[in-house]
């Protein structure tokens, strides 16, 4: 069996805690995902904290905002650790896909996550609505 991939969820405010709550509400488990918020931390401290959570094992660092401090810390970390993948713009479908496939090799997980680009966000206009009577 493959080594399980760790997920580290880094976000602004209570986003990481909240998303993990949502994952647990749906799957019944918080296993494999660690939430981190960036409050009061210098960029160096945030990077060190995420690095300590990632350890030597394969990890995916999920972050919220591509131009945010969480994303920059994760990208810097990735430069030093080939077994870390970084995903910006995290959303719930993406996280759920991850927690159900953590036993796959990191490369396969990354491919799965890549397939969400342009898919897990939908835009629905009034004209698209098929609800009868509207």
């Amino acid at each position: 069996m493959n080594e399980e991939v760790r997920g580290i969820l880094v976000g602004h405010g209570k986003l990481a805690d909240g998303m993990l709550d949502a994952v647990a509400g749906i799957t019944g488990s918080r296993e494999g995902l660690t939430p981190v918020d960036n409050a009061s931390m210098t960029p160096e401290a945030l990077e060190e904290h995420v690095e300590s959570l990632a350890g030597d094992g394969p990890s995916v660092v999920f972050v919220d905002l591509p131009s945010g401090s969480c994303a920059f810390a994760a990208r810097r970390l990735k430069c030093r650790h080939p077994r870390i993948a970084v995903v910006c713009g995290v959303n719930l479908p993406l996280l759920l896909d991850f927690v159900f496939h953590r036993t796959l090799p990191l490369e396969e997980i990354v491919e799965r996550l890549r397939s969400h680009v342009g898919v897990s966000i939908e835009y629905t206009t009034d004209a698209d609505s098929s609800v009868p009577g509207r």
Partner: protein
Amino acid sequence: MPILLCRVDDRLIHGQVVVGWGAQLGLDLIAVIDDELSGSEWEQDLYRAGLPDEVEALFPSVEGALELIPGWASNAARGFILARDIATMRRLAEHGALADIEVNLGGLHSAPGRQRVLPYLFFSDEDRAELRRLKRAGVNVSAQDVPSARRIGLDELLEMKAG
């Protein structure tokens, strides 16, 4: 180039700057003035990769910035200046580069030797000394993390109890 924000923030380019202030004031160009970053191309690429396509980033050293800043007057781009510490702003001020520009303290976070003044500002004794030097150089300084927050002037800030 109109300097819309001249900010001390140890996170440099990040969400509050690009999205918070950028969306409010409009933003075409960010000049990150930092001696260390100016010599590190991979770190510059890393920051550029996180920016919206329409925002340009420059990474001059203090010396490089002193040459660039006079030319910005004739540039129409809406610009932000960022530095990771107060000393960088003080060096710019001592060379007259911050005339009529207010320095915004937007983020100096928890670190050994620093005490909390505001949720986003932690000062060491040296930070306080640098702030007084900035004041002596004739620069207006205030603290404000996001556009909707209260702007706090330097005198009030230095009187706030650290804890």
